């Protein structure tokens, strides 16, 4: 059974790049454009991993992770944060919120996949 990864980012192109890489590696992908969209799409449907951007309209990545970690349906789901080097404070905030893994932008598809594989087997 293919594992499912949710990709949350407001940049369509980035979402697409990540999704293409993930599908290529055999994962199923659900896309969301920001935190609230992600929560809505998740509902009670559990995914194996969430990859989320930090800066997004409506609900940013940090608030999203906080909400996710408080939801009994999703609180153990691993989260990879997409950070930039300039966001050291955000990274710490994200970690405190419960996103323990991160990939620094810009990243190569292989880097992304490597991080995913460290969290969930294909």
């Amino acid at each position, binding site marked *: *059974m293919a594992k499912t990864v949710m990709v949350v980012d407001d940049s369509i192109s980035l979402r697409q790049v990540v999704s293409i890489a993930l599908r290529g590696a055999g994962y199923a992908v659900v896309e969301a454009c920001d935190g609230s969209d992600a929560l809505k799409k998740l509902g009670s449907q*559990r995914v194996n991993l969430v990859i989320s951007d930090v800066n997004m309209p409506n609900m940013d990545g940090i608030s999203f992770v906080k909400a996710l970690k408080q939801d009994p*349906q999703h609180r*153990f789901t691993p989260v990879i944060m997409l950070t930039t080097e300039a966001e050291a404070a955000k990274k710490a905030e994200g970690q405190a919120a419960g996103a323990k893994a991160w990939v620094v932008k810009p990243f190569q598809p292989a880097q992304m996949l490597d991080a995913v594989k460290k969290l969930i087997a294909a």
Partner: protein
Amino acid sequence: MNAGQRTVAMGDSLTIYAVAELRNKLLQELATCRDLVLDMDAVAEVDAAGLQLLVALKHQALFDGCELSLVNHSAELRQALELFGLNSFFGDPQLIPAKE
């Protein structure tokens, strides 16, 4: 009190999301029998939290002087046990798979 063997079919999820509930359920089962058999056929999802639960169950069974055996290991479970080097931990006839 039923002192005989009791077979419990495990659900599909043996993961962190299920362990809290499973713990209570299995504790109850253990308290009501002397020989607990878990049918692992349906286990489709397993993680380290699930395996930890099984190890803890085994410890509890030893503590309580109760028999515990796992049968009909699903492929997923066998894979996980093998990866963790726990093939022989439960002393089960898991080398004979329920089905392939």
